């Protein structure tokens, strides 16, 4: 399973995010609230749950974050849609790769619910903005969990 997303160009994704990170994070004024980075949440995901949590987070971004985000800057819109398309490609790649082996344990389901609960704490456009500003956490988590060397 670890090799499922190895074909995804993570560098391009990270580059797209880096180009809009400052804009997104500067507009996010709620420093005391986090959507993804309750680290006990993501860091504690076991290898067996990586597929489910990846899929759930891709769905979270596709169905909530990208939809709820209101953006005026064309530059930012262009990069967010590039990221959104990459996520769609990632989700398709994952589905083809795992053929229904994407088992969701209670922990994986709880982790996903926590993220949605965090999201619901904020007004929707603020929540979307914050989630976009935290994409680097999700991308780093994917990088670590999906492309580790075969030795691990």
């Amino acid at each position, binding site marked *: 399973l670890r090799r499922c997303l190895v074909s995804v160009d993570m560098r391009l994704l990270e580059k797209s995010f880096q180009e809009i990170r400052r804009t997104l994070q500067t507009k996010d004024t709620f420093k005391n609230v986090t959507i993804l980075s309750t680290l006990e949440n993501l860091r504690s995901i076991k290898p067996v749950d990586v597929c489910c949590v990846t899929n759930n987070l891709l769905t979270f971004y596709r169905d909530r974050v990208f939809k709820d985000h209101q953006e005026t800057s064309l530059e930012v819109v262009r990069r967010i849609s590039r990221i959104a398309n990459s996520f769609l490609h990632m989700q398709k790649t994952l589905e083809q790769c795992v053929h229904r082996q994407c088992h969701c344990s209670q922990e994986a389901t709880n982790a996903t619910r926590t993220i949605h609960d965090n999201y619901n704490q904020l007004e929707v456009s603020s929540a979307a903005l914050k989630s976009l500003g935290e994409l*680097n956490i999700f991308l*780093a988590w994917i990088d670590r969990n999906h492309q580790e060397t075969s030795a*691990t």
Partner: protein
Amino acid sequence: VPYAFCGLPKPTNITFLSINMKNVLHWSRPEGLHGVEVTYTVQYFIYGQRKWLSASKCTSISRTYCDLSVETSDYERQFYAKVKAIWETRCSEWAETERFYPFLETQVSPPEVALTTGEKSISIALTAPEKWKRNPQDSPVSMQQVYPNLKYNVSVYDTKSGRTWSQCITNSTLVLSWLEPSTLYCVRVESLVPGPTRLPLPWKQCISTLEVQTSTWKVKV
């Protein structure tokens, strides 16, 4: 002493300089305050937590940097820092950093490199760089433990032919056995970790392969 009036200009260029998780906050003196005894106070914020915290070692300091490695040692969290200038009873507004994510932003120094040459070979032995330690006597932690897919970009420049050859490796030794004798080669090594591209910190050294050993035969007449 409460500050009567906060009209001083803010410190500028406030940023984290991070190498192997040693995270030092740097800033520049506020403009227009030459020849004035300015001191600074630093606070930091753990993203997702509740409030700003004082950097105990950096209250009313006159230098323009503050080592926040201890405060930001959980490198998977994200942080902000801010600094304000103080002069007598006057102070500035806070100058604040962007959100700082050590895991994705720290620069990784090059590995330790040992070169051994033969007539037609150079052997390159690499040792992963060490992560910043809270106390010198703490046992060392390799950056390989922080980044399991830490790689090394090794390039070799042949000063005679002008050609450069490079390879990305994960293991710790590399032997180049197809070289020319008595030739100067310049070796360059840098560490590569996943995530956004970071400022490279290359290691460089030039070394010459040995001369061909001509064996002398003694002929008995």
